[in-house]
């Protein structure tokens, strides 16, 4: 009996199927990491590491340090352009608060890798607030509460098409605190789309 031969065309089709399978395996590896991307950008943690207040006559020197952590398994995130604003609430009595508008905290330009499980410590920054918000009465506040709104650029594989900017809110009266993610901003290039998503963190 003569052996049945496979034509060149059929062989090419089989080769094409094998190539397709190989490409699907390559794409599957990328897909697994990509599926971790969105949970990762919503779970990036920012916390107040230390918050020190040093009274100096009529002013209080405040030293604050933040830390950013990637608690997920996603690889390929890094941080740049960390910045924060602050405001202060003086608790004068259980029924009387005074809110003082703060300003921006100055940070040097920085970049840091956010590998899975790693924490990136932001340099300590210092600012001054008044120790006595009611100059007239001279009443000292019972407690001072600080509100910070840190944000940074999260470098991702999407950098060519958009910048991802998570924003947070942190409240502390001197103790370390975990910040809540409040916004996830997307800034795209010219002609693209952009916007911010506001919601729970």
């Amino acid at each position, binding site marked *: *009996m003569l*052996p*049945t*031969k*496979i*034509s*060149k*065309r*059929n062989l*090419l*089709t*089989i080769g*094409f*199927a094998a*190539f*397709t399978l190989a*490409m*699907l395996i*390559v*794409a599957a*590896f*990328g*897909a697994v*990491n*990509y*599926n971790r*991307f*969105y*949970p990762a*950008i*919503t779970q990036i943690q920012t916390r107040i590491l230390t918050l020190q207040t040093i009274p100096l006559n009529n002013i209080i020197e405040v030293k604050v340090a933040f830390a950013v952590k990637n608690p997920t398994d996603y690889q390929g995130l890094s941080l740049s352009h960390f910045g924060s604003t602050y405001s202060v609430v003086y608790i004068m009595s259980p029924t009387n608060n005074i809110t003082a508008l703060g300003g921006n905290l100055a940070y040097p330009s920085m970049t840091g890798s956010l590998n899975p499980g790693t924490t990136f410590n932001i340099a300590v920054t210092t600012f001054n607030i008044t120790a006595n918000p009611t100059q007239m009465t001279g009443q000292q506040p019972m407690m001072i509460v600080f509100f910070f709104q840190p944000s940074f650029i999260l470098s991702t*594989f*999407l*950098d*060519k*098409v*958009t910048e991802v900017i998570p924003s947070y809110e942190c409240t502390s009266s001197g103790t370390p605190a975990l910040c809540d*993610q*409040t*916004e*996830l901003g*997307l800034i*795209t290039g010219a002609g*693209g*789309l*952009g*916007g*911010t*998503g*506001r*919601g*729970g*963190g």
Partner: protein
Amino acid sequence: MAWEEQVEEEARTTAQRINQLFASENRRGVILIPLWTLAMTATFAQALFQRASMTLFDYGLAVAICFVAGAIVIDLGRALLSYIATMALTTFLLITLLSYPATTTNLPSPGNLLFSTLWIIVVFTTIFPIPLIACLVATVIGAMAGEKYF
């Protein structure tokens, strides 16, 4: 000797099955279009999953896939129709694959919608218009080459 005969018999049976699988052009088309779609989707997806853009190598790979697929189809009209079906399915699959995780993750709204819109733009700018034309040309050349060599 019996072992050699058994191997020969198995090879003959496999070859017959393969030839039956591609016995008609319609059957070949039914198998080839999904394969072509999956190959194109995987090529584009692996690049977009990693960089959100294609390198020249990725585009070269896509063009090569179209050339080989065209060569397998041979018939020019059938190749063009298969190409249109493949690219339509590839675009749909890519947008679905890229947008789905963004819509299912609890992203602060409207971030989830922005990501989906972003991926639609990325997919369209990645595929249209030059890569689409280049792959079309590669399919036509592939079909002509297939006609000559098969």
